[in-house]
């Protein structure tokens, strides 16, 4: 008996040890994913009933100008926020890598924006970018520039949102880069210095190539976050889900919410969009992956 129990123990327990992850993933990851796919094949109104309609929701999407507008906005804002964000993070990490006073305090400090609640960030920044009485326009006014109606134009609203996103996430990325930089052996730099390579050259020829896997990681995380952008544009729009009078800065997540929860409670349509968004993120991550890997060769 004792022997048999112990054998059961050896065969079974490894699975039990890893089970929590898989159980949680199945319940909170896989099931919603598949259920959403199922819902997306129906005409599904939360308060009414639902009927199977096949791919109708997906074909309707192709004809929906608001959907394409939201997709364009999402991708545009993603590029506008992610590129400067990662470059800036690299620069900050490089600066923090050097010897300096109060190094730990500064390193911790750059993470502070990230632990601020996104709602607080959104509210403060939407005050800064208020059209008539905001700080941004006041500063522009001091420089003699006409006030900008931030929410009225695409470029201005996208910039305001990119600033919010970058304010929150640059420090986080910088810290990840910094951690990766510290694993680069110092003798590489010493050798390069002896050969007469400038600091600039060392940065591009040693630091950046060795950081490639880390850069890929941050790029994918930024892609996932950027494609799901929701709170910042919503708060800039004073909580209006349309994102500007002509949907200048409505993101895909906002449009999904609008259709699934905001007005007609069209869960089927919202789910179809959620799946398209999922595929978009997948494709964008693969492109990132391919680009960074090709660069590494």
């Amino acid at each position: 008996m004792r022997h048999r129990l112990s054998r059961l123990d050896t065969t079974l327990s490894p699975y039990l040890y890893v089970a929590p992850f898989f159980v949680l993933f199945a319940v909170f990851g896989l099931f919603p994913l598949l259920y959403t796919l199922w819902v997306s094949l129906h005409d599904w109104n939360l308060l009414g009933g639902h009927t199977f309609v096949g791919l109708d929701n997906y074909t309707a999407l192709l004809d929906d100008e608001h959907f394409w507008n939201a997709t364009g906005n999402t991708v545009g804002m993603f590029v506008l926020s992610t590129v400067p964000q990662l470059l800036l993070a690299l620069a900050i990490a490089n600066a923090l890598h050097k010897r300096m006073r109060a190094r730990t305090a500064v390193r911790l400090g750059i993470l502070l924006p990230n632990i601020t609640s996104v709602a607080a960030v959104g509210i403060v920044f939407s005050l800064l970018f208020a059209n008539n009485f905001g700080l941004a326009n006041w500063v522009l006014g001091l420089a003699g520039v006409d006030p900008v109606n931030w929410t009225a134009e695409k470029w201005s609203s996208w910039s305001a949102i990119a600033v919010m996103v970058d304010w929150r996430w640059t420090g986080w990325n910088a810290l990840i880069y910094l951690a990766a930089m510290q694993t680069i052996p110092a003798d590489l730099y010493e050798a390069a210095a002896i050969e007469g390579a400038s600091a600039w050259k060392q940065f591009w020829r040693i630091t950046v190539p060795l950081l490639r896997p880390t850069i890929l990681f941050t790029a994918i995380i930024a892609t996932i976050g950027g494609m799901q952008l929701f709170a910042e544009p919503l708060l800039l729009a004073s909580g209006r889900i349309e994102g500007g009078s002509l949907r200048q800065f409505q993101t895909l997540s906002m449009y999904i919410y609008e259709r699934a929860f905001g007005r007609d409670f069209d869960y089927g349509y919202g789910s179809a969009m959620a799946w398209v968004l999922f595929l978009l993120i997948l494709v964008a991550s693969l492109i990132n992956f391919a680009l960074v890997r090709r660069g590494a060769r």
Partner: protein
Amino acid sequence: MSLSTGPLRRAAVLALAAVTALGMTAACSRKDDTGATGKTKLVIQTFGKPGIDQAVAAFQAAHPNIVVDHQKLGELRDFQPKLVQWLGAGKGAGDVVMLEEGVLLGYLQQPDNFANLLDYGGAGLKDSFLSWKYQRGMTSDGKKLVGLGTDVGGLAMCYRTDLLAKAGMPTDRAEVAKLWPTWEAYRASGVAFKAKNTGAAWTDSATGVVQPYAMQASDRIFFSPDNTLIADSNPSVRHTWDYANSLISDGLTAKLTTWSKDWEAGFKKAAFATMPCPAWMTGVIKANAGDEGAGKWDVATIPGGTGNWGGSYFAVPKQSKHPKEAYELAKYLTGKDGQLAVYKEVGAMPSSPQALEDPAFRDSRNDYFNNAPTGKIFADSVRTMRPVFLGAKHQEIWESVFMPQLQAVEQGKASSEEAWKAANAEARKRVG
């Protein structure tokens, strides 16, 4: 010591299994809604600033066996999606829920989610409400009473005495009312005000005049009583649109988006001189303009003299386990005493004729607004009012289609004609 063999490891496996199982049972067990005290607990869910704290306290004092849990759930736009999910899921909604007028009209088409208040004596309340307010809480076949009316949005024109004085205009409310007996006169006075270069605009936005104007112009707006979209064929919608656009082209608006941070700041900065204000808006103005605005605002009659803008209802979701008590609570809150308490707390105007005639309302003055006789002004605006048919999708067609398009014109992003076409096309798409 190693974990690889022995009883400790088996214990760990068992513990893990136990924790998992426990977690599942905990997730499945339901919270009981009667507390250890044996009292009945009623949950009431509201949005905005319902101002029912005193009324709820009075209700509890009269019903010692009932505990009321008042959940304030943010603005309407936050609350409404949650409520739909709760109704759809069959749990989560309170025993009494607050429904905005436009939202209620949508539910009346699928009234199954709510209890029929006629079953609990709702028919006897007919005379406790303005007749149109009572009627709107009922399904079109008159067989089911879903909502009991809370407030109505009697209309007036709020204005800043300091800005009018700066422009050399009268500030006394009787004299001021003569500046705008009609909407055309309101616009002409605006042009005269603008010529004085006070640095402030005549009104906050072009969208602010739309509801009051449209409500007076016809007995219907975007929908005919059979719920057909008539936005492009109803002449009064076009008149309203053109009137709002004339305010834009005359440069009379401060181009503020209602409910935005900018708009809120505009009150403090004295950015505009007038705004149409439903009774509930006086509370909003007071909150936004703050202490330094006290005594600078006043209230005069609205151009055209009548109108209603907004107002809510209380309904009892079918999933409530205590519909009888919930009905009692809704009845008290919408009754004379409840409504007067709300009026005292946030200035929302009663929909009960008894409360409207009560000296506590009738003779009331608002000291923030230069001690204006707000009770009389607002009561006068609803007494002669004709009911207007809104339709289930009114709120959506206005707030998500026509309002943003009008704002686009105001921001100089579209011409009036382009925006009109775009709005009508979008409206057809949403209804069709």
